[in-house]
Protein backbone atom coordinates (compact mmCIF):
# COMPACT_ATOMS: atom_id res chain seq x y z
CA UNK A 1 0.00 0.00 0.00
CA UNK A 2 2.72 2.40 1.01
CA UNK A 3 4.72 1.54 -2.09
CA UNK A 4 1.78 2.29 -4.36
CA UNK A 5 1.18 5.64 -2.70
CA UNK A 6 4.80 6.65 -3.07
CA UNK A 7 4.99 5.60 -6.66
CA UNK A 8 1.79 7.52 -7.45
CA UNK A 9 2.68 10.73 -5.61
CA UNK A 10 4.90 13.25 -7.39
CA UNK A 11 8.57 13.58 -6.56
CA UNK A 12 9.36 15.15 -3.19
CA UNK A 13 10.71 18.70 -3.29
CA UNK A 14 14.46 19.25 -2.99
CA UNK A 15 15.77 21.22 0.03
CA UNK A 16 16.55 24.12 -2.30
CA UNK A 17 12.96 24.22 -3.53
CA UNK A 18 11.65 24.12 0.05
CA UNK A 19 14.01 26.95 1.00
CA UNK A 20 12.86 29.03 -1.97
CA UNK A 21 9.20 28.49 -1.09
CA UNK A 22 9.68 29.41 2.57
CA UNK A 23 11.83 32.46 1.81
CA UNK A 24 9.28 33.75 -0.67
CA UNK A 25 6.66 33.21 2.03
CA UNK A 26 8.66 35.48 4.33
CA UNK A 27 8.42 38.26 1.81
CA UNK A 28 4.91 37.30 0.79
CA UNK A 29 5.50 36.95 -2.96
CA UNK A 30 5.46 33.79 -5.07
CA UNK A 31 5.24 33.15 -8.79
CA UNK A 32 2.09 31.26 -9.77
CA UNK A 33 3.97 28.50 -11.61
CA UNK A 34 6.40 27.98 -8.75
CA UNK A 35 3.51 27.99 -6.29
CA UNK A 36 1.62 25.36 -8.26
CA UNK A 37 4.71 23.18 -8.25
CA UNK A 38 5.03 23.69 -4.47
CA UNK A 39 1.46 22.54 -3.89
CA UNK A 40 2.11 19.10 -5.36
CA UNK A 41 5.68 18.51 -4.19
CA UNK A 42 6.01 20.08 -0.73
CA UNK A 43 4.97 18.14 2.37
CA UNK A 44 3.70 19.97 5.49
CA UNK A 45 6.59 18.58 7.54
CA UNK A 46 9.13 20.00 5.10
CA UNK A 47 7.46 23.42 5.21
CA UNK A 48 7.28 23.50 9.03
CA UNK A 49 10.92 22.40 9.50
CA UNK A 50 12.14 24.86 6.87
CA UNK A 51 9.96 27.61 8.37
CA UNK A 52 11.42 27.11 11.86
CA UNK A 53 14.99 27.03 10.49
CA UNK A 54 14.37 30.13 8.37
CA UNK A 55 12.82 32.00 11.32
CA UNK A 56 15.85 31.11 13.47
CA UNK A 57 18.24 32.26 10.73
CA UNK A 58 16.20 35.46 10.33
CA UNK A 59 16.41 36.26 14.06
CA UNK A 60 20.13 35.38 14.21
CA UNK A 61 20.97 37.53 11.20
CA UNK A 62 19.08 40.48 12.71
CA UNK A 63 20.98 39.98 15.98
CA UNK A 64 24.28 39.86 14.07
CA UNK A 65 23.34 43.01 12.16
CA UNK A 66 22.55 45.00 15.31
CA UNK A 67 25.68 43.69 17.02
CA UNK A 68 27.74 44.81 14.05
CA UNK A 69 26.14 48.27 14.09
CA UNK A 70 26.51 48.76 17.85
CA UNK A 71 30.14 47.60 17.83
CA UNK A 72 31.17 50.42 15.49
Amino acid at each position, binding site marked *: MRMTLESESPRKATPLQVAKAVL*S*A*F*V*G*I*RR*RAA*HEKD*VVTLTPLQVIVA*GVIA*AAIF*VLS*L*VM*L*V*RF*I*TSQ
Partner: protein
Amino acid sequence: MEAAHAHNGHGHGAHGHHYSGLMRWITTTNHKDIGTLYLFFALTMFFVGGLLALMLRAELFEPGLQFWRPEFFNQLTTMHGLIMVFGAIMPAFVGFANWQVPMMIGAPDMAFARMNNWSFWLLPVGAILLVASFFVPGGATAAGWTIYAPLSTQMGPGMDLAIFALHIMGASSIMGSINIITTILNMRAPGMALMKMPLFVWTWLITAYLLIAVMPVLAGAVTMVLTDRHFGTNFFNAAGGGDPVLFQHVFWFFGHPEVYIMILPGFGIVSQIVPTFARKPLFGYSSMVYATASIAILSFIVWAHHMFTVGMPAVAQLFFMYATMLIAVPTGVKVFNWIATMWKGSLTFETPMLFACGFIFVFSMGGFTGLVLAITPVDIQLQDTYYVVAHFHYVLVAGSLFALFGGTYYWLPKWIGRMYDETLGKWHFWLSMIFFNITFFPMHFTGLAGLPRRVPDYNMQFADFNMISTIGAFGFGLAQLIFVYVLVKAIRGAGEKVSDKVWEGADGLEWTLPSPPPYHTFETPPLVK
Protein backbone atom coordinates in the same frame (compact mmCIF):
# COMPACT_ATOMS: atom_id res chain seq x y z
CA MET B 1 -32.21 35.65 11.96
CA GLU B 2 -35.61 34.00 12.14
CA ALA B 3 -35.70 33.55 8.41
CA ALA B 4 -32.62 31.37 8.67
CA HIS B 5 -34.62 28.93 10.72
CA ALA B 6 -37.55 28.64 8.43
CA HIS B 7 -36.26 25.17 7.70
CA ASN B 8 -35.92 24.31 11.35
CA GLY B 9 -38.08 21.50 12.60
CA HIS B 10 -37.84 19.35 9.49
CA GLY B 11 -36.06 16.76 11.55
CA HIS B 12 -32.67 17.43 9.97
CA GLY B 13 -29.51 15.74 11.07
CA ALA B 14 -28.65 14.03 14.31
CA HIS B 15 -30.48 16.48 16.56
CA GLY B 16 -33.56 14.53 17.49
CA HIS B 17 -35.16 17.30 19.52
CA HIS B 18 -35.38 21.03 19.12
CA TYR B 19 -36.05 23.43 21.91
CA SER B 20 -37.83 26.63 21.11
CA GLY B 21 -37.54 30.15 22.44
CA LEU B 22 -34.71 30.95 24.81
CA MET B 23 -33.78 27.31 25.41
CA ARG B 24 -33.05 26.90 21.72
CA TRP B 25 -30.33 29.56 21.93
CA ILE B 26 -28.93 28.20 25.20
CA THR B 27 -28.71 24.61 24.00
CA THR B 28 -27.91 25.15 20.34
CA THR B 29 -24.99 23.35 18.74
CA ASN B 30 -25.67 24.72 15.25
CA HIS B 31 -22.84 26.82 13.81
CA LYS B 32 -25.24 29.35 12.32
CA ASP B 33 -27.09 29.86 15.63
CA ILE B 34 -23.82 30.15 17.51
CA GLY B 35 -22.44 32.55 14.90
CA THR B 36 -25.55 34.69 15.36
CA LEU B 37 -25.12 34.61 19.15
CA TYR B 38 -21.48 35.70 18.84
CA LEU B 39 -22.41 38.55 16.51
CA PHE B 40 -25.23 39.86 18.70
CA PHE B 41 -23.01 39.56 21.78
CA ALA B 42 -20.22 41.48 20.03
CA LEU B 43 -22.66 44.17 18.87
CA THR B 44 -23.96 44.60 22.42
CA MET B 45 -20.45 44.87 23.84
CA PHE B 46 -19.53 47.28 21.04
CA PHE B 47 -22.23 49.62 22.30
CA VAL B 48 -21.20 49.14 25.94
CA GLY B 49 -17.57 49.92 25.05
CA GLY B 50 -18.74 52.77 22.84
CA LEU B 51 -20.75 54.27 25.69
CA LEU B 52 -17.61 54.24 27.86
CA ALA B 53 -15.70 55.93 25.01
CA LEU B 54 -18.31 58.68 24.80
CA MET B 55 -18.12 59.17 28.57
CA LEU B 56 -14.34 59.64 28.14
CA ARG B 57 -14.76 62.04 25.26
CA ALA B 58 -17.42 64.05 27.14
CA GLU B 59 -14.92 64.64 29.94
CA LEU B 60 -12.23 65.62 27.41
CA PHE B 61 -14.48 68.07 25.56
CA GLU B 62 -13.00 70.90 27.62
CA PRO B 63 -9.97 71.23 29.88
CA GLY B 64 -10.70 70.87 33.60
CA LEU B 65 -12.76 68.22 35.35
CA GLN B 66 -16.42 68.33 34.27
CA PHE B 67 -18.08 64.98 34.82
CA TRP B 68 -15.89 62.32 36.40
CA ARG B 69 -13.38 61.90 39.18
CA PRO B 70 -9.90 61.09 37.76
CA GLU B 71 -10.04 57.60 39.34
CA PHE B 72 -13.29 56.85 37.54
CA PHE B 73 -11.88 58.28 34.30
CA ASN B 74 -9.06 55.73 34.52
CA GLN B 75 -11.64 52.98 34.99
CA LEU B 76 -13.40 54.18 31.86
CA THR B 77 -10.23 54.08 29.70
CA THR B 78 -9.33 50.63 31.01
CA MET B 79 -12.75 49.08 30.59
CA HIS B 80 -13.26 50.71 27.18
CA GLY B 81 -10.12 48.93 25.99
CA LEU B 82 -10.82 45.57 27.62
CA ILE B 83 -14.44 45.47 26.47
CA MET B 84 -13.69 46.50 22.89
CA VAL B 85 -10.79 44.04 22.50
CA PHE B 86 -12.15 40.99 24.32
CA GLY B 87 -15.88 41.66 24.13
CA ALA B 88 -16.45 43.27 20.73
CA ILE B 89 -13.72 42.76 18.11
CA MET B 90 -12.59 39.21 18.95
CA PRO B 91 -16.07 37.68 19.44
CA ALA B 92 -17.31 39.40 16.27
CA PHE B 93 -14.61 37.70 14.18
CA VAL B 94 -15.39 34.36 15.86
CA GLY B 95 -19.03 34.95 14.93
CA PHE B 96 -18.01 35.37 11.30
CA ALA B 97 -15.88 32.22 11.52
CA ASN B 98 -18.83 30.25 12.89
CA TRP B 99 -21.20 31.36 10.18
CA GLN B 100 -18.80 31.33 7.28
CA VAL B 101 -16.04 28.74 7.72
CA PRO B 102 -18.30 25.65 7.46
CA MET B 103 -20.23 27.15 4.55
CA MET B 104 -17.04 28.19 2.74
CA ILE B 105 -15.27 24.83 3.02
CA GLY B 106 -18.37 22.69 2.50
CA ALA B 107 -18.56 21.28 6.04
CA PRO B 108 -21.89 20.44 7.71
CA ASP B 109 -21.00 22.21 10.99
CA MET B 110 -18.06 22.97 13.27
CA ALA B 111 -16.01 19.96 14.37
CA PHE B 112 -16.87 20.17 18.08
CA ALA B 113 -20.44 21.40 18.10
CA ARG B 114 -21.04 21.14 21.85
CA MET B 115 -17.73 22.76 22.73
CA ASN B 116 -18.76 25.52 20.33
CA ASN B 117 -21.82 26.16 22.48
CA TRP B 118 -19.64 26.26 25.60
CA SER B 119 -17.12 28.62 23.94
CA PHE B 120 -19.91 31.09 23.33
CA TRP B 121 -21.74 30.84 26.65
CA LEU B 122 -18.53 31.52 28.60
CA LEU B 123 -18.41 34.97 27.02
CA PRO B 124 -21.50 36.52 28.63
CA VAL B 125 -20.14 35.32 31.99
CA GLY B 126 -16.85 37.14 31.34
CA ALA B 127 -18.73 40.21 30.14
CA ILE B 128 -20.94 40.28 33.24
CA LEU B 129 -17.83 40.05 35.45
CA LEU B 130 -16.24 42.96 33.59
CA VAL B 131 -19.30 45.19 33.71
CA ALA B 132 -20.16 44.21 37.30
CA SER B 133 -16.66 45.24 38.40
CA PHE B 134 -17.78 48.89 38.16
CA PHE B 135 -20.03 48.25 41.16
CA VAL B 136 -17.58 46.61 43.58
CA PRO B 137 -15.70 48.64 46.24
CA GLY B 138 -13.09 50.78 44.49
CA GLY B 139 -14.78 50.24 41.14
CA ALA B 140 -13.44 48.55 38.03
CA THR B 141 -9.75 48.06 37.32
CA ALA B 142 -8.09 51.33 36.36
CA ALA B 143 -4.68 49.93 35.40
CA GLY B 144 -5.18 50.43 31.65
CA TRP B 145 -6.14 47.59 29.31
CA THR B 146 -2.51 46.46 29.50
CA ILE B 147 -2.95 45.97 33.31
CA TYR B 148 0.72 46.76 33.95
CA ALA B 149 2.21 45.80 37.28
CA PRO B 150 2.57 47.38 39.81
CA LEU B 151 -0.74 49.17 39.09
CA SER B 152 -2.54 45.86 38.68
CA THR B 153 -1.06 44.44 41.87
CA GLN B 154 -2.47 47.39 43.82
CA MET B 155 -6.07 47.70 42.56
CA GLY B 156 -9.19 46.71 44.49
CA PRO B 157 -11.42 43.69 43.89
CA GLY B 158 -12.39 45.05 40.45
CA MET B 159 -8.97 43.86 39.29
CA ASP B 160 -9.72 40.32 40.48
CA LEU B 161 -12.96 40.32 38.53
CA ALA B 162 -11.09 41.51 35.42
CA ILE B 163 -8.48 38.74 35.88
CA PHE B 164 -11.21 36.14 36.20
CA ALA B 165 -13.00 37.57 33.16
CA LEU B 166 -9.78 37.39 31.13
CA HIS B 167 -9.27 33.78 32.19
CA ILE B 168 -12.79 32.87 31.11
CA MET B 169 -12.68 34.78 27.83
CA GLY B 170 -9.25 33.32 27.11
CA ALA B 171 -10.56 29.80 27.65
CA SER B 172 -13.41 30.60 25.30
CA SER B 173 -10.95 31.85 22.64
CA ILE B 174 -8.75 28.77 22.96
CA MET B 175 -11.72 26.42 22.59
CA GLY B 176 -13.00 28.42 19.65
CA SER B 177 -9.58 28.21 18.00
CA ILE B 178 -9.28 24.46 18.50
CA ASN B 179 -12.69 24.14 16.91
CA ILE B 180 -11.80 26.32 13.93
CA ILE B 181 -8.47 24.57 13.28
CA THR B 182 -10.02 21.10 13.53
CA THR B 183 -12.90 22.08 11.28
CA ILE B 184 -10.63 23.54 8.62
CA LEU B 185 -8.06 20.75 8.66
CA ASN B 186 -10.48 17.81 8.82
CA MET B 187 -13.85 18.77 7.42
CA ARG B 188 -13.15 20.33 4.04
CA ALA B 189 -15.26 19.08 1.14
CA PRO B 190 -13.58 16.67 -1.29
CA GLY B 191 -11.39 18.67 -3.66
CA MET B 192 -11.10 21.67 -1.31
CA ALA B 193 -7.30 21.59 -1.08
CA LEU B 194 -5.69 23.95 1.40
CA MET B 195 -4.50 26.22 -1.39
CA LYS B 196 -8.02 26.40 -2.81
CA MET B 197 -9.57 27.63 0.42
CA PRO B 198 -11.10 31.11 0.42
CA LEU B 199 -8.74 33.64 1.95
CA PHE B 200 -11.08 34.32 4.87
CA VAL B 201 -10.67 30.66 5.88
CA TRP B 202 -6.89 30.87 5.52
CA THR B 203 -6.62 33.99 7.64
CA TRP B 204 -8.76 32.38 10.33
CA LEU B 205 -6.68 29.19 10.29
CA ILE B 206 -3.53 31.23 10.93
CA THR B 207 -5.29 33.46 13.48
CA ALA B 208 -6.50 30.39 15.38
CA TYR B 209 -2.92 29.13 15.69
CA LEU B 210 -1.86 32.56 16.97
CA LEU B 211 -4.66 32.46 19.56
CA ILE B 212 -3.66 29.03 20.81
CA ALA B 213 -0.04 30.19 21.06
CA VAL B 214 -0.66 33.40 23.00
CA MET B 215 -3.87 33.16 25.04
CA PRO B 216 -2.13 30.83 27.55
CA VAL B 217 0.62 33.45 27.86
CA LEU B 218 -1.97 36.07 28.84
CA ALA B 219 -3.54 33.58 31.24
CA GLY B 220 -0.09 33.04 32.77
CA ALA B 221 0.54 36.78 33.11
CA VAL B 222 -2.79 37.51 34.81
CA THR B 223 -2.41 34.44 37.05
CA MET B 224 0.97 35.75 38.20
CA VAL B 225 -0.71 39.10 38.95
CA LEU B 226 -3.39 37.22 40.89
CA THR B 227 -0.87 35.28 43.00
CA ASP B 228 1.15 38.46 43.57
CA ARG B 229 -2.04 40.11 44.82
CA HIS B 230 -3.30 37.38 47.09
CA PHE B 231 -0.90 34.52 47.62
CA GLY B 232 2.36 36.17 48.60
CA THR B 233 4.36 35.71 45.41
CA ASN B 234 6.66 38.46 44.14
CA PHE B 235 6.84 37.95 40.39
CA PHE B 236 6.39 41.65 39.71
CA ASN B 237 7.31 43.15 43.08
CA ALA B 238 10.80 44.65 43.03
CA ALA B 239 10.86 44.82 46.84
CA GLY B 240 10.48 41.05 46.95
CA GLY B 241 13.07 40.34 44.25
CA GLY B 242 10.63 40.41 41.33
CA ASP B 243 10.55 42.73 38.32
CA PRO B 244 7.60 44.80 37.10
CA VAL B 245 9.18 44.91 33.63
CA LEU B 246 8.77 41.12 33.46
CA PHE B 247 5.02 41.73 33.34
CA GLN B 248 5.42 43.96 30.31
CA HIS B 249 7.50 41.35 28.48
CA VAL B 250 5.01 38.58 29.19
CA PHE B 251 2.01 40.77 28.44
CA TRP B 252 3.34 42.01 25.11
CA PHE B 253 4.47 38.55 24.05
CA PHE B 254 0.73 37.95 24.13
CA GLY B 255 -0.22 41.50 23.16
CA HIS B 256 1.55 41.86 19.88
CA PRO B 257 0.27 38.66 18.25
CA GLU B 258 -3.10 39.76 19.69
CA VAL B 259 -2.91 42.82 17.44
CA TYR B 260 -2.66 40.48 14.44
CA ILE B 261 -5.40 38.25 15.84
CA MET B 262 -7.64 41.30 15.61
CA ILE B 263 -6.60 42.26 12.07
CA LEU B 264 -5.84 39.06 10.09
CA PRO B 265 -9.49 37.91 9.84
CA GLY B 266 -10.23 41.47 8.74
CA PHE B 267 -7.68 41.02 5.94
CA GLY B 268 -9.56 37.83 5.09
CA ILE B 269 -12.93 39.59 4.87
CA VAL B 270 -11.51 42.37 2.69
CA SER B 271 -9.90 39.72 0.46
CA GLN B 272 -13.37 38.22 -0.11
CA ILE B 273 -15.12 41.54 -0.73
CA VAL B 274 -12.66 43.21 -3.12
CA PRO B 275 -12.67 40.43 -5.80
CA THR B 276 -16.49 40.26 -5.65
CA PHE B 277 -17.00 43.93 -6.43
CA ALA B 278 -14.03 44.16 -8.83
CA ARG B 279 -15.46 41.09 -10.64
CA LYS B 280 -11.96 39.65 -10.86
CA PRO B 281 -10.24 36.85 -8.97
CA LEU B 282 -8.00 37.94 -6.11
CA PHE B 283 -4.61 39.02 -7.44
CA GLY B 284 -1.76 36.96 -6.00
CA TYR B 285 -3.80 34.47 -3.95
CA SER B 286 -0.78 32.45 -2.88
CA SER B 287 1.15 35.63 -2.03
CA MET B 288 -1.74 36.59 0.24
CA VAL B 289 -1.55 33.24 2.03
CA TYR B 290 2.22 33.47 2.36
CA ALA B 291 2.07 37.09 3.48
CA THR B 292 -0.47 36.20 6.18
CA ALA B 293 1.75 33.39 7.46
CA SER B 294 4.75 35.70 7.35
CA ILE B 295 2.97 38.42 9.35
CA ALA B 296 1.96 35.78 11.90
CA ILE B 297 5.56 34.55 12.35
CA LEU B 298 6.97 38.07 12.58
CA SER B 299 4.34 38.98 15.18
CA PHE B 300 6.20 36.82 17.72
CA ILE B 301 9.51 38.65 17.50
CA VAL B 302 8.50 42.30 17.77
CA TRP B 303 6.80 42.54 21.17
CA ALA B 304 9.34 44.82 22.86
CA HIS B 305 8.60 47.70 20.47
CA HIS B 306 5.81 48.43 22.97
CA MET B 307 8.47 48.92 25.65
CA PHE B 308 11.21 51.04 24.11
CA THR B 309 11.21 53.33 27.16
CA VAL B 310 11.71 50.69 29.87
CA GLY B 311 15.49 50.74 29.56
CA MET B 312 16.59 48.03 27.15
CA PRO B 313 20.12 47.66 25.79
CA ALA B 314 20.65 49.40 22.43
CA VAL B 315 21.11 46.00 20.78
CA ALA B 316 17.61 44.96 21.83
CA GLN B 317 16.12 48.30 20.80
CA LEU B 318 17.66 48.00 17.34
CA PHE B 319 16.60 44.37 16.99
CA PHE B 320 12.95 45.12 17.78
CA MET B 321 13.01 48.23 15.61
CA TYR B 322 14.30 46.36 12.56
CA ALA B 323 12.03 43.36 13.05
CA THR B 324 9.02 45.67 13.43
CA MET B 325 9.79 47.64 10.31
CA LEU B 326 10.11 44.42 8.30
CA ILE B 327 6.41 43.67 8.96
CA ALA B 328 5.69 46.46 6.51
CA VAL B 329 6.91 44.17 3.69
CA PRO B 330 4.23 41.43 3.84
CA THR B 331 1.61 44.02 4.82
CA GLY B 332 2.59 46.08 1.80
CA VAL B 333 2.26 42.97 -0.37
CA LYS B 334 -1.34 42.64 0.81
CA VAL B 335 -2.24 46.26 0.12
CA PHE B 336 -0.59 45.97 -3.30
CA ASN B 337 -2.58 42.80 -4.07
CA TRP B 338 -5.91 44.40 -3.12
CA ILE B 339 -5.18 47.37 -5.37
CA ALA B 340 -4.00 45.07 -8.17
CA THR B 341 -7.26 43.13 -7.81
CA MET B 342 -9.20 46.34 -8.35
CA TRP B 343 -6.99 47.38 -11.28
CA LYS B 344 -9.01 47.25 -14.51
CA GLY B 345 -11.85 45.50 -12.71
CA SER B 346 -15.53 46.27 -13.32
CA LEU B 347 -15.80 48.08 -10.03
CA THR B 348 -19.05 48.90 -8.28
CA PHE B 349 -19.26 50.44 -4.85
CA GLU B 350 -22.00 48.82 -2.83
CA THR B 351 -21.69 49.24 0.94
CA PRO B 352 -19.39 46.21 1.54
CA MET B 353 -16.98 47.50 -1.11
CA LEU B 354 -17.10 51.02 0.35
CA PHE B 355 -16.09 49.62 3.73
CA ALA B 356 -13.36 47.48 2.10
CA CYS B 357 -11.93 50.51 0.25
CA GLY B 358 -12.26 52.62 3.41
CA PHE B 359 -10.41 49.85 5.23
CA ILE B 360 -7.52 49.80 2.74
CA PHE B 361 -7.18 53.59 2.78
CA VAL B 362 -7.44 54.23 6.50
CA PHE B 363 -5.75 51.04 7.67
CA SER B 364 -2.72 51.97 5.54
CA MET B 365 -2.54 55.28 7.36
CA GLY B 366 -2.55 53.39 10.65
CA GLY B 367 0.18 51.15 9.25
CA PHE B 368 2.33 54.14 8.35
CA THR B 369 2.02 55.69 11.81
CA GLY B 370 3.01 52.24 13.08
CA LEU B 371 6.23 52.56 11.10
CA VAL B 372 6.80 55.99 12.62
CA LEU B 373 6.36 54.50 16.10
CA ALA B 374 8.66 51.59 15.24
CA ILE B 375 11.61 53.99 15.03
CA THR B 376 13.04 53.77 18.53
CA PRO B 377 14.15 57.39 19.05
CA VAL B 378 10.82 58.67 17.72
CA ASP B 379 8.89 56.24 19.89
CA ILE B 380 10.76 57.39 22.98
CA GLN B 381 9.27 60.84 22.28
CA LEU B 382 5.80 59.58 21.45
CA GLN B 383 5.43 56.74 23.99
CA ASP B 384 2.09 56.99 25.81
CA THR B 385 0.98 60.09 23.93
CA TYR B 386 -2.16 60.58 21.88
CA TYR B 387 -0.12 59.76 18.76
CA VAL B 388 -0.19 56.14 19.92
CA VAL B 389 -3.93 56.42 20.60
CA ALA B 390 -4.42 57.72 17.06
CA HIS B 391 -2.25 54.94 15.59
CA PHE B 392 -4.01 52.00 17.17
CA HIS B 393 -7.48 53.40 16.59
CA TYR B 394 -6.60 53.76 12.91
CA VAL B 395 -5.75 50.05 12.74
CA LEU B 396 -8.44 48.77 15.12
CA VAL B 397 -11.43 50.96 14.26
CA ALA B 398 -10.76 51.71 10.62
CA GLY B 399 -9.07 48.32 10.27
CA SER B 400 -10.84 45.63 12.25
CA LEU B 401 -14.17 47.38 12.78
CA PHE B 402 -14.58 48.58 9.18
CA ALA B 403 -13.74 45.05 7.97
CA LEU B 404 -16.43 43.71 10.33
CA PHE B 405 -18.97 46.21 9.01
CA GLY B 406 -18.00 45.35 5.42
CA GLY B 407 -18.31 41.64 6.17
CA THR B 408 -21.72 42.15 7.76
CA TYR B 409 -23.10 44.01 4.75
CA TYR B 410 -21.48 41.44 2.44
CA TRP B 411 -22.87 38.26 4.04
CA LEU B 412 -26.02 39.54 5.80
CA PRO B 413 -28.20 39.12 2.66
CA LYS B 414 -26.96 35.52 2.43
CA TRP B 415 -27.70 34.88 6.12
CA ILE B 416 -31.22 36.32 6.18
CA GLY B 417 -32.22 36.01 2.53
CA ARG B 418 -33.10 39.67 2.17
CA MET B 419 -31.20 42.76 1.05
CA TYR B 420 -30.39 45.47 3.56
CA ASP B 421 -31.18 49.13 2.85
CA GLU B 422 -28.35 50.12 0.50
CA THR B 423 -28.91 53.87 0.86
CA LEU B 424 -28.74 53.73 4.64
CA GLY B 425 -25.73 51.41 4.41
CA LYS B 426 -23.91 54.02 2.36
CA TRP B 427 -24.89 56.72 4.86
CA HIS B 428 -23.49 54.51 7.59
CA PHE B 429 -20.21 54.17 5.73
CA TRP B 430 -19.71 57.82 4.87
CA LEU B 431 -20.72 59.13 8.30
CA SER B 432 -18.48 56.53 9.98
CA MET B 433 -15.57 57.38 7.71
CA ILE B 434 -15.90 61.15 8.15
CA PHE B 435 -16.53 61.13 11.89
CA PHE B 436 -13.82 58.53 12.45
CA ASN B 437 -11.27 60.88 10.91
CA ILE B 438 -12.66 63.91 12.73
CA THR B 439 -12.23 61.97 15.98
CA PHE B 440 -8.83 60.43 15.53
CA PHE B 441 -6.87 62.52 13.02
CA PRO B 442 -6.44 65.47 15.44
CA MET B 443 -4.99 63.02 17.97
CA HIS B 444 -1.85 62.79 15.81
CA PHE B 445 -1.36 66.52 16.40
CA THR B 446 -2.12 66.49 20.12
CA GLY B 447 0.18 63.48 20.49
CA LEU B 448 3.04 65.11 18.59
CA ALA B 449 2.57 68.17 20.82
CA GLY B 450 2.97 65.95 23.86
CA LEU B 451 -0.52 65.24 25.23
CA PRO B 452 -0.24 62.04 27.31
CA ARG B 453 -2.92 59.36 26.95
CA ARG B 454 -5.20 58.31 29.86
CA VAL B 455 -5.49 61.80 31.39
CA PRO B 456 -8.84 63.37 32.39
CA ASP B 457 -7.53 66.94 32.21
CA TYR B 458 -5.08 68.75 29.95
CA ASN B 459 -3.37 72.03 29.23
CA MET B 460 -5.28 74.79 27.40
CA GLN B 461 -3.07 74.39 24.31
CA PHE B 462 -4.82 71.08 23.52
CA ALA B 463 -8.36 72.44 23.93
CA ASP B 464 -9.36 72.94 20.29
CA PHE B 465 -8.21 69.57 18.97
CA ASN B 466 -9.84 67.77 21.90
CA MET B 467 -13.10 69.56 21.26
CA ILE B 468 -12.97 68.45 17.61
CA SER B 469 -12.21 64.87 18.67
CA THR B 470 -15.17 64.82 21.04
CA ILE B 471 -17.55 66.17 18.41
CA GLY B 472 -16.27 63.50 16.01
CA ALA B 473 -16.66 60.76 18.62
CA PHE B 474 -20.31 61.60 19.28
CA GLY B 475 -20.95 61.74 15.53
CA PHE B 476 -19.29 58.36 15.09
CA GLY B 477 -21.33 56.91 17.95
CA LEU B 478 -24.60 58.22 16.53
CA ALA B 479 -23.70 56.91 13.05
CA GLN B 480 -23.59 53.41 14.52
CA LEU B 481 -27.29 53.70 15.35
CA ILE B 482 -27.87 53.71 11.58
CA PHE B 483 -26.12 50.33 11.47
CA VAL B 484 -28.47 48.94 14.13
CA TYR B 485 -31.47 50.35 12.27
CA VAL B 486 -30.29 48.79 8.99
CA LEU B 487 -29.80 45.44 10.74
CA VAL B 488 -33.20 45.50 12.45
CA LYS B 489 -34.94 46.56 9.26
CA ALA B 490 -33.28 43.84 7.20
CA ILE B 491 -33.78 41.07 9.78
CA ARG B 492 -37.46 41.98 10.10
CA GLY B 493 -37.76 41.22 6.39
CA ALA B 494 -38.18 44.71 4.95
CA GLY B 495 -35.74 44.29 2.07
CA GLU B 496 -36.30 42.50 -1.20
CA LYS B 497 -35.53 38.78 -1.48
CA VAL B 498 -32.06 38.00 -2.79
CA SER B 499 -30.84 35.26 -5.12
CA ASP B 500 -28.53 32.46 -3.98
CA LYS B 501 -25.52 34.29 -5.33
CA VAL B 502 -26.61 37.71 -3.95
CA TRP B 503 -23.71 39.59 -5.59
CA GLU B 504 -22.99 39.33 -9.32
CA GLY B 505 -19.26 38.78 -8.83
CA ALA B 506 -19.49 36.51 -5.78
CA ASP B 507 -17.58 33.25 -5.92
CA GLY B 508 -17.40 30.42 -3.39
CA LEU B 509 -19.36 27.54 -1.88
CA GLU B 510 -21.53 29.69 0.40
CA TRP B 511 -23.09 31.34 -2.65
CA THR B 512 -24.23 27.96 -4.03
CA LEU B 513 -26.56 27.59 -1.02
CA PRO B 514 -30.07 29.07 -0.93
CA SER B 515 -30.50 32.49 0.70
CA PRO B 516 -31.13 32.12 3.61
CA PRO B 517 -29.26 28.83 3.91
CA PRO B 518 -31.23 25.99 5.50
CA TYR B 519 -30.55 25.22 9.17
CA HIS B 520 -28.27 22.34 8.20
CA THR B 521 -26.11 22.75 5.12
CA PHE B 522 -23.70 20.48 3.23
CA GLU B 523 -24.87 17.32 5.00
CA THR B 524 -23.67 15.75 1.77
CA PRO B 525 -20.32 17.35 1.01
CA PRO B 526 -20.15 19.26 -2.28
CA LEU B 527 -17.49 18.32 -4.80
CA VAL B 528 -14.98 21.11 -5.39
CA LYS B 529 -13.35 21.10 -8.80
